[in-house]
């Protein structure tokens, strides 16, 4: 879908939006299940939490955060273009702006999520 069709920025923005959306939906299913366990079977939830807090778990959380951040930023762009159609002229620039914010927020964010598993300092010390 993304590699074969050379549709330019608008197409790739749409493809990423769809992929990140489906990924977040899958995580929501897991996340409601784990929070339900926190109430229904606290011991099992605490075991699951150890997986979340491990290094592979934290890398997964950073990826969920990346999907969430992209979907949120590009979603604002979609809403802006829907309600102010004249902005469509700048749809590419708006997409590049999304990526600037994505990396400015996402790189420190990913560090803070993964750091505790590597014994590196975070905002909490």
């Amino acid at each position, binding site marked *: 879908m993304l590699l074969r069709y050379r549709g330019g920025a*608008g197409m790739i*923005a*749409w493809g990423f*939006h*769809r992929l990140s*959306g*489906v990924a*977040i*939906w899958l995580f*929501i*299913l897991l996340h*409601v*299940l784990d*929070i*339900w366990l*926190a*109430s*229904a079977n*606290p*011991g099992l*939830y*605490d075991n699951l*939490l150890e997986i*979340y*807090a491990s290094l592979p*778990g*934290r890398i997964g*959380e950073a990826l969920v*955060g990346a999907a*969430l*951040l992209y979907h*949120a930023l590009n*979603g*604002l*762009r*979609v*809403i802006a*273009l*829907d309600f102010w*159609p*004249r902005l*469509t002229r700048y*749809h590419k620039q708006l997409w590049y702006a999304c990526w600037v914010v994505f990396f400015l927020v996402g790189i420190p*964010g990913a560090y*803070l*999520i993964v750091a*505790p598993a590597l014994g590196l300092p*975070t*905002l*909490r010390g």
Partner: protein
Amino acid sequence: MASITRAGRARPQGGAGFEMAVWYLIRLSGLALFVLALSHFSITHFVSDPAEQTSQWIFDERWNGLFWRTLDWLMLQMVIFHSFLGMRTVLGDYLKGGARTAVLMALYLLAFVVFVMGTVAVMSMPVGLVP
């Protein structure tokens, strides 16, 4: 009428109807989630840390009061509307006929199950958990 953009699904034509309601609901719940989901993720990963968030911690701190339980329940509703209506659009793009109907029915059933499980969790976090 510049109702078609390259960014998202075009606004449905033909006045008020179910598809138009869905189109607006996706965008409204998206705006709500921009605040709710991003702040939720920031609180659980930057202010706090997943390693601390045991079931005991959820009871003692996170859900120790109506405010957070209400806010999280609101977020649950927004996320169910947004993610399941989004999946409805995605699946509807790739399926048709009877398969589409069957898959969408299963999707709505799953949405209901997720809503019930989340609601049970946020409302019934057992008081007896704390000794």
